[in-house]
């Protein structure tokens, strides 16, 4: 589904991603871990098409289509969804109205008419239950005055509503209490199917106990330096990143 080849990207002319390769197939969940500042959020932003991130080399294909050619809105309509590490507040814009607009635009891109109000509301209700999202929050202004955890849960609610092909969760678990973590994870598990894929960025092994990944990658200094199965996450939890930094250092020295 997603193929990333030798991706290089810079922010303010400073290179952050330095030749990243990744292959994600439909139905898979990939976890990405790595020390602070290693480029995890940068990867998410680059995939979603944020303007301030400049791709200097490499290619990204989504089902064979050149993703890097598309505008952010068209990437979203093609099925790329980024759950933000720091969701912004948009005062006065109703959450529901925003979702209705987003859903209609995605449907229009696929040549579908907007959902009837009744069907839309039915879907809202269903998805609210699925991710246990408070109806009161759904009716408030978009993230305005939401607590950190509520913002994260709103990302998952939006994910459920928009049903993307490829979802990138950027530290959705950080800031969630234990119950919320379980709820969010069970929501994601419900949304998993053989047709979609998830990239889960996290610092904590705990999330991966709930959302069991097919692969775990370690991103370090803009490159994936280790890949493995969920045992790799356990190993990292135990040993930290030092051993990886050392081995990478040694490899680079050669």
């Amino acid at each position: 589904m997603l193929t990333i080849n030798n991706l290089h990207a810079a922010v303010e002319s400073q290179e952050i991603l330095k030749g990243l390769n990744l292959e994600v197939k439909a139905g898979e969940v990939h976890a990405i871990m790595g020390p602070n500042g290693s480029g995890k959020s940068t990867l998410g932003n680059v995939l979603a098409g944020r303007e301030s991130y400049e791709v200097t080399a490499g290619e990204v294909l989504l089902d064979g289509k050149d993703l890097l050619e598309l505008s952010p809105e068209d990437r979203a309509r093609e099925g790329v969804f980024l759950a933000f590490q720091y969701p912004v507040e948009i005062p006065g814009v109703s959450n529901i109205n925003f979702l209705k607009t987003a859903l209609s635009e995605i449907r229009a891109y696929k040549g579908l008419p907007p959902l009837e109000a009744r069907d839309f509301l039915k879907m809202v209700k269903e998805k609210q239950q699925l991710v246990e999202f408070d109806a009161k929050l759904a009716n408030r202004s978009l993230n305005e005055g939401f607590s950190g955890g509520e913002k994260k849960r709103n990302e998952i609610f939006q994910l459920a509503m928009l049903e993307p092909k490829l979802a990138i969760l950027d530290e959705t678990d950080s800031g969630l209490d234990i119950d919320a973590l379980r709820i969010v994870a069970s929501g994601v598990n419900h949304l998993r199917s053989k047709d979609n894929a998830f990239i889960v960025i996290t610092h904590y092994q705990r999330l991966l106990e709930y959302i069991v990944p097919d692969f775990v990658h370690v991103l370090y200094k803009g490159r994936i330096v280790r890949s493995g199965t969920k045992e790799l996450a356990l190993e990292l939890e135990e040993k930290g990143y030092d051993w990886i930094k050392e081995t990478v250092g040694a490899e680079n020295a050669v």
Partner: protein
Amino acid sequence: MSTKDDEMLKELALEEYKYGFTTDIEMDIAPKGLSEDTVRLISAKKNEPEWLLEWRLKALRHFMKMDMPAWQNFTLPEIDFQDISYYAAPKAKPKLNSLDEVDPELLSTFEKLGIPLDEQKVLAGVVAVDAVFDSVSVKTTFREKLKEQGVIFCSFGEAVQEHPELVKQYLGSVVPQTDNVYAALNSAVFSDGSFVYIPKGVRCPMELSTYFRINAENTGQFERTLIIADEGAYVSYLEGCTAPMRDENQLHAAVVELIALKDAEIKYSTVQNWYPGDKDGKGGIYNFVTKRGICKGDNSKISWTQVETGSAITWKYPGVILKGDHSVGEFYSVALTRNKQLADTGTKMIHLGKHTRSKIVSKGISAGTSHNSYRGLVKIGPGAEGSRNFTQCDSLLIGDRCGAHTFPYIENRNRTATLEHEATTSKIGEDQLFYLTQRGIDPEKAVGLIVNGYAKEVLNQLPMEFAVEAQKLLAISLEGSVG
């Protein structure tokens, strides 16, 4: 901000003005120029009583002696008052009793504007409309239904004929002829407008609405609106306006006077969408309007809500004189400027009575190279014991070539009064835009959503049907972009 956003924001605002058509209709137009003869001509055309002619002439003499104002935040273009025609009316009629008598061209004009004059079609009885085309009122709907409750809703001209005592008592009682240059000019040459009287204890059963349309070339529009809510009465009134696209500037100098007696409430909403000129600043309406209400009786309330998106230059300060004890004045405003538009708008709250309260919420939105100013005065008189004002002025900038300015003036002569002022300036953030586009929303629509969200507190004040219109108007005004 990144270059693409920059470009998009730069181009924001180029959407064509969709009300810019003209109507080809036989007109009765007064020769250009301003003199006592002009005033006499207008007064005669309208078959006015002697006292009103005298009143007009007095205003004209004042006008001739007055200097043009110079305190505004921009250079006012020179206006040649002799190069304007002060009266234009569709031929045929003046007085119409049924729709059949209205020129079909005119009917279709209002239809094109989305203002149905056919009573059956009008929102199932929620709104009564008075349509003013250039200088005269074309048709007032639902008059009979309103009459049952004793509500008078008619053109100003008719009110002069049929309710002279009310007109004589209140005309100029809130905005004196000498108030300012444009009020003086209006008092001399005003053509038509709307008149409303709500009797004691009556809650007006529907929204009243006036729709203004400037059509003729080289004419000015000088309408006059007078609304009186007797004791315990309530009325919600809305005005809308559009004009054709013309290369010359046209002058619109209206006067609106509101009078709320004891326990009465008047809610006055404006959706102003006069032609703003093209993107290079050519053409457009000069909108110099004097609007003021008086809360004459105790516990009365006047509330102004305005959504200003049109006009080349807007210059208006709807105010409230809070004379009755415990009376309340409110001002909710959204002013959007783009291209080369200039808006200088705000309010005057004059607290005279005890325990009077006022609330000001102003939301400016500037795009392109436009300039948007809030200018407000809160005055607390010595007798205004325990009065309160709350002012909130927010400015939203789209792009970095536009300007937002705030000029809050406060004169407080009573120590027991409480005044609060809050002001913010913000830009549409790249992060907000990205958040919305990442969810599949078109960047133009995203800006529309953000702007409407920003203006929500004000839009919420509008009657339901018009809130939807105003939302669309704000979004459309920012459309036509994205490279």
